[in-house]
């Protein structure tokens, strides 16, 4: 039997891992339960929410692979105000690609703590998002996320930066109306 209590640092690490997973799972649940405003509440005011496009590039030409958030066109590349606007639109009931609303299931896994600096934690995770709409419209998005989270008294953490690395080149679904 491992005596966890004997090593305070690893115990703290274990608790942090547990807290982070709980936070990320809750985030996914809020999206799937259409509690979008509550989801917004988990994002820091200054969040950079970024999903670059991904190019097919020659081996080794990796600096060309992801589109630049600074100079190029990205799928998502925005702050909280824009995300709020998107959610206002989703909540009108007349945003046709979500009317009738989709059934989303976000599965979050591979949660890894990359770095802890004071209140800030870099954590990576993977997602699988399944969309089922109308009778037979099915779309999936698979990818990973590189997050910067900050401890927060109210919500546990806030997402300060999120880079979403989608395993896709041409966007195959006609519309993306969920978040990752």
């Amino acid at each position, binding site marked *: 039997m491992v005596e966890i209590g004997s090593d305070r640092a690893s115990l703290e690490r274990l608790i942090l891992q547990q807290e982070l997973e709980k936070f990320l799972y809750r985030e996914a649940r809020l999206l799937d339960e259409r509690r979008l405003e509550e989801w917004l509440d988990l994002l820091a005011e200054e969040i950079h929410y970024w999903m670059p496009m991904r190019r097919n590039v020659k081996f080794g030409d990796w600096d060309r692979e992801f589109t630049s958030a600074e100079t190029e066109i990205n799928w998502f590349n*925005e702050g909280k105000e*824009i995300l709020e606007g998107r959610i206002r639109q989703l909540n009108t009931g007349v945003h046709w690609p979500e009317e009738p609303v989709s059934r989303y299931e976000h599965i979050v896994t591979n949660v890894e703590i990359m770095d802890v600096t004071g209140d800030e934690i870099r954590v990576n995770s993977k997602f699988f998002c399944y969309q089922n709409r109308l009778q037979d419209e099915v779309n999936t998005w698979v990818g990973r996320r590189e997050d910067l989270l900050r401890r927060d008294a109210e919500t546990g953490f806030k997402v300060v930066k999120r880079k979403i690395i989608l395993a896709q080149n*041409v966007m195959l679904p006609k519309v993306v*109306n969920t978040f990752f």
Partner: protein
Amino acid sequence: MVDIIRARGDYSIAEYIDSEKGTVSRELYVNPDIFEQEMEQIFQRCWLFLGHESQLPNPGDFIVSRMGTEEVIVVRDRNDNKIRAFLNSCRHRGMKVCRYDEGNALVFTCPFHAWTYDTTGSLVGAGFYNRPDASTDTLPRENWGLSEVAQFKNFYGSLWATWDPKAPSFEDYLGPFAESLRHCLQSSDGEDNGLEFFTPFQRHRLPTNWKVPGFTSVTDLTHTAMTHRSSQAAGLHQDRGQGKEKPTIPFPQEKYAIGDHSLGHGGMCTFYNQAGVPQYTNEWFEPGVDDYFRDATERKAQKYVDRVMAPHGWGGGHFAIFPAVMVDSWRLRWYHPHETGMTERWTLSGVDKNAPKEVKDAVRHYSERFNGPIGFFESDDMENWNYVYPASQGARARKLDYFFRNGIGHGKYDDRLPGVIVNGSYTEEAQRARFSRWLAFMEAKSWDDLYPINKSSARRIW
């Protein structure tokens, strides 16, 4: 050439358009035989949009683009700096030579048997070419280069090509729309080729026939209120819901929908009834952006002190080049057919080359959140364009017609734009013009039968 739809027996294509009633059979959108004929009769003959020179600034730079269902490599030559376009298909056994979206190349080497092409498309080597038992040493290399487009045009920075050597010049193909396109490629201070375009292409799939968006968008004013009902709530336009400034200085102008039935182009059009340019009104949320555009507009106004601007689209654009390029002053969007019921949509957004970074950023972020599958505005369109297709292709549904009558019979020729029908903004004039041209292409044996190569073949079916 083929004017019989095989799957339907003995109807001619013309019978699927009823110009008296103002209807088009849904069959034209859902029938795979017609789709195949379109690829031959339209996409092999028309001038198609490839991209913009700002995407490949350096010698050896290339992008992979599309013409119809096929890929083309667009490359800037290392020696003469010229841009050329080639089918992305190896001449040996047809392997896709280039599988990258873009890059910089010394040569293109096929991954199958190493046939190698330089940046002018010439075959310069092949695997084992110097072995006596590999017959490539006797290969007449000059005949085995990559298949190059028949005509290529750099029009004020925008790149276009056609596979048909008999096609008219690009300017003749555009007719009166050449000036409008030129205008859309100007910077906001009115300098030619004044835009650069943000990389890369924004590309996404749309499960519908290419004509659904291709023959509808930018000329469909009656869809906006219903389709885009939700977008106002988002408050994500340039002004982010703070409200746009209203002009205080009146500028007499007339706005119409127009359609050029003999060339197939059409869309929104503004006639300016006095010299100068309309007053700039504030519309941007981000600080400093309006100052830049107001300044640029004043510089542009200097160029038009005693000159009336050529008629062009609303807000500088919003018209379609046949078959499926939608032109605005800040973006180009176009549709690539994949199959009868699958289309790929590409967008490029532009900005003044000389604008400061904060202006470029504001325009870029607006493009990111407005356009395409994640665009708060355009995502609305995708749902309607998509479900038109499954709801039109059933055995019963396809026997019905689509209604294209809005404003039929009310259009008039106007001296200010010779050859073009001018009609009310909410009419479907531009959509009808597309079908006049569509039918002409589907029936013509070659460009010899088509306007403007054959002047007498100008066609207006309704």
